[in-house]
């Protein structure tokens, strides 16, 4: 078992850092079927949006961690960070719509110097704000007051914690991350998060630490709640199980560990038409750090923009709701088993 890589693929100048190389690798696999065929059989091709209820903003790839499974290839060396100007364009786009949910992700979103400004603007528009937090950032001195900031603005906090035990968490996210994550969760509990109170929703996200699909979300949530409370006195409101997407650094690990073909075949074999009907790309739009629009954060990282391409400064909700969603072989990650989305299981 190797320790997590402490540099991004980009910093190591790996050919696999290129989205086109990742897509070629996935397309070259000898699989049972193609994503287009699977969706066709389920009566879902071309894949169309339903109603867009989530405006996801990726505010940059800069992160204080370098997790092994990261689909963004985020890390401390990344310099792609959304500017205040692009954030303003996001706010202008939002203001033209009634999209109720803003989902802020990264990288570590809090490292964007205008993160708090963005949250305040979204809340001023009356939108529900979700922040995807890696927990350890809350222990850095310049971000130590974030729990109070989140509470002040009723931000829903969605945090990554692959396991309630140190072993698996540190293997995926780096040495020492587990202990810091528990301290950060305790801080969030202190300001009222995780007890079911409105405006204080605390969600944990678990990705499998390896080449397997997540288990039953409800059963894992019961287990996580019991064990985190028993071992650490930590409380939270819900657990989301998210399938690891075979792209970026998780793809690198699959290749290195010789698990890629078997894993991708398992995803294809577990294709679930119900999960496919509920994929998150049907109800969201994803904005990249430079304002480009994508069907989801995964397509964003693979540089597969919405068709036709659109910048957030030209945001046109009607056109977006009439588009066909771009799909490829990685999409089997969202349609396998109980389904997977930024909000956990979907099936």
């Amino acid at each position, binding site marked *: 078992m190797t320790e997590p890589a402490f540099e991004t693929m980009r910093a190591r100048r790996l050919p696999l850092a290129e989205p086109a190389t990742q897509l070629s690798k996935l397309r070259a696999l000898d699989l049972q079927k193609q994503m287009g065929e699977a969706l066709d059989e389920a009566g879902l091709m071309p894949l169309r949006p339903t109603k867009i209820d989530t405006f996801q903003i990726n505010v940059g790839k800069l992160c204080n961690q370098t997790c092994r499974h990261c689909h963004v290839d985020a890390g401390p060396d990344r310099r792609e960070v959304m500017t205040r100007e692009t954030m303003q364009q996001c706010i202008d786009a939002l203001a033209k719509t009634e999209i109720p949910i803003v989902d802020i992700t990264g990288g570590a979103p809090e490292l964007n110097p205008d993160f708090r400004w963005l949250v305040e603007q979204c809340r001023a528009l009356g939108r529900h704000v979700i922040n995807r937090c890696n927990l350890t950032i809350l222990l850095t001195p310049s971000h130590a007051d974030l729990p109070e900031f989140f509470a002040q603005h009723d931000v829903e906090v969605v945090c990554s914690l692959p*396991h309630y*035990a140190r*072993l*698996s968490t540190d293997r995926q996210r780096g040495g020492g991350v587990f202990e810091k994550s528990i301290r950060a969760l305790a801080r969030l509990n202190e300001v009222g998060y995780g007890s079911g109170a409105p405006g204080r929703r605390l969600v944990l996200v*678990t990705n*499998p*630490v*390896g080449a*397997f*699909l*997540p*288990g*039953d979300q409800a*059963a*894992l949530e*019961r*287990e*996580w709640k019991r064990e985190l409370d028993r071992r650490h006195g930590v409380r939270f409101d819900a657990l989301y199980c998210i399938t690891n997407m075979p792209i970026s650094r998780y793809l690198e690990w699959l290749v290195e560990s010789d698990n890629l073909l078997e894993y991708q075949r398992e995803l294809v074999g577990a294709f679930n038409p119900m999960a496919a009907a509920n994929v998150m790309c049907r109800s969201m739009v994803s904005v990249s750090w430079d304002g480009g629009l994508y069907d989801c954060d995964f397509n964003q990282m693979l540089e597969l923009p919405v068709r036709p391409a659109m910048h957030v400064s030209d945001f046109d909700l009607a056109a977006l709701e009439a588009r066909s969603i771009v799909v490829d072989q990685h999409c089997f990650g969202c349609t396998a088993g109980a389904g997977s989305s930024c909000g956990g299981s979907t099936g």
Partner: protein
Amino acid sequence: MTHSHYYDREDLAKFGEIGEHKPELAEKFFDYYGAVFEDGALTAREKALIALGVAHAIQCPYCIDSYSKDCLRKGADLDQMTEAVHVAAALRGGASLVHGIQMRNRAQKLSM
């Protein structure tokens, strides 16, 4: 197809083919098997850990493959899975050792 060895991991995925003959028996078995592993008085996760221990006690490579993955999916980690294997090892070791009492009984009966 013949192999030069007794076990082949590809065979695990073919388990269902056993029902090509006497399908009514296979159906009863697989229905029963599925029901056994559902959440009940024990959780599905606890049952997977028991199955992992049993897999080691009966030394079935298919079961070890299958329940290693199943335990991970159900949220068990390597510490917990290793403890399950130690339970099997303790039982197997204990089962050998406790027969030492039979040995002692016999030896004492035969000895002056």
